[in-house]
């Protein structure tokens, strides 16, 4: 089996030539997928923290709206949110590229999950830590940044990592609004060559090759952090 065996007529047999033809597009797709994943993670990590802090705000005027918003986003499908942002926002004269819209949507959607993760991490910090901070007259800001968050975040890094992997597996939804990520690349390729098996298989394998080592890495990190 070498890349040179072209077997163009058949659809039953595996065609390495088709794989080779797909590769340049494939790499472009990998790049887009990883880009969406990286930026989406960044958005979900930071926005989720904002939500988690808002859950603990001293006033209901903050807690209630944020609670409502995050519950709404968390309990509606990502694909619906994607379509909404992509097709409805332009009617209000807010227009982003498909990739930007997709990244924002996936980041926003996952921020409602990471918010719950952060919240659990914050709740797990013993009450004695708050009391010690108070007894030392630490400011509200210092209490959060120097005492509570370092302990909370350390605990939740593994859980956050799991959501990165889940997010990776949700990036193909962005094909629904035409983002040229892995799945969309393979669909375009297949639509031209009618060789679905090769392109889709390559994409599937690519997801395993990214996701599995990531989860191994995560487990190693977990062992280091949770002592």
């Amino acid at each position, binding site marked *: 089996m070498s890349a040179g065996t072209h077997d163009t007529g058949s659809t039953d047999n595996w065609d390495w030539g088709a794989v080779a033809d797909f590769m340049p597009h494939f790499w472009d797709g990998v790049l887009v997928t990883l880009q969406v994943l990286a930026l989406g993670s960044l958005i979900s990590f930071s926005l989720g923290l904002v939500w988690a802090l808002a859950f603990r705000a001293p006033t209901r005027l903050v807690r209630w709206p944020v609670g409502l918003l995050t519950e709404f986003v968390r309990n509606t499908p990502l694909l619906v949110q994607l379509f909404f942002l992509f097709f409805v926002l332009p009617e209000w004269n807010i227009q982003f590229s498909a990739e930007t819209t997709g990244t924002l949507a996936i980041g926003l959607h996952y921020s409602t999950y990471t918010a719950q993760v952060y919240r659990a991490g914050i709740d797990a910090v013993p009450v004695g*830590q708050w009391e010690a901070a*108070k007894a*030392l*007259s630490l*400011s509200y800001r210092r209490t959060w940044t*120097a*005492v509570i968050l370092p302990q909370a975040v350390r605990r939740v890094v593994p859980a956050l990592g799991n959501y990165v992997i889940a997010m990776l597996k949700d990036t193909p939804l962005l094909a629904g609004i035409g983002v040229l990520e892995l799945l969309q690349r393979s669909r375009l390729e297949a639509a031209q060559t009618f060789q679905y098996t090769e392109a889709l298989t390559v994409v599937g394998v690519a997801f395993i090759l990214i996701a599995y080592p990531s989860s191994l890495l995560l487990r190693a990190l977990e062992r280091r952090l949770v*002592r």
Partner: protein
Amino acid sequence: MSADTPLSKERPNPAVDGSELIRFDRVVKRFGANTVLDELDFSVASGKHVTLIGPSGSGKTTILRLLMTLIKPDEGTIKVGGAYLTHEEKNGRLVPAGEKHVREVRKNIGMVFQQFNLFPNMKVLRNITEAPVTVLGLPKDEAEQRARDLLDLVGLGDKCDAYPTQLSGGQQQRVAIARALAMRPQVLLLDEVTSALDPELVAGVLDVLRDIAHTTDITMLCVTHEMNFARDISDQVLMFDAGRVIESGPPEKIFSDPEHERTREFLSAVL
């Protein structure tokens, strides 16, 4: 400044006329239907070491937690160094204290907890310097010098770079004592500081506290079940029962010739 001994007698906020430092006036604290403190009145003179004894649930720890502003009284007022801890005066009227006012008064008070409550994410040295630097605005090197002096005082001069989890319970508690002292509080609250320790580690912690009690003029309020320690360091012992002080006096009196029947019962149970 860096030549300061860690426990110099200078006080950032000298007590009003040098006498009464803490005053509880008709303080009531309820938890649900349970009245823990019932119109409690008592005061502590500046520089005195006062031990609170009594059966569990009698409100001793509640007093320390009220002073540390970890909880608020339901009724009554608390004054520390002449300033209200619970209220502030606005246009001649007493109103519930705002966060800023509480923070100012609270700076005069330090607390050591039963469970140490060191910050596990910081090394020992930073546990001690964090508040002096960020709250008092001390320069970092000065705060570190102060912290090293205090660590020497509690016998842990070599543990600056350790994390709390690498220390024994007794060592952690001694760091916690150093951390509280680094703020140079007028009042040090000690909440059953040896209760969570293995028996063989208790003596080391008590020695440090004895040392501090005998060499400084810091005011101490101490809840403890170590009666020998109480006898040793106290100027005054307050016996609590059901949210009230039922008897108070110098330790010799309370421990050898108590007047109240409840005190006798309690002491015979714990001694």
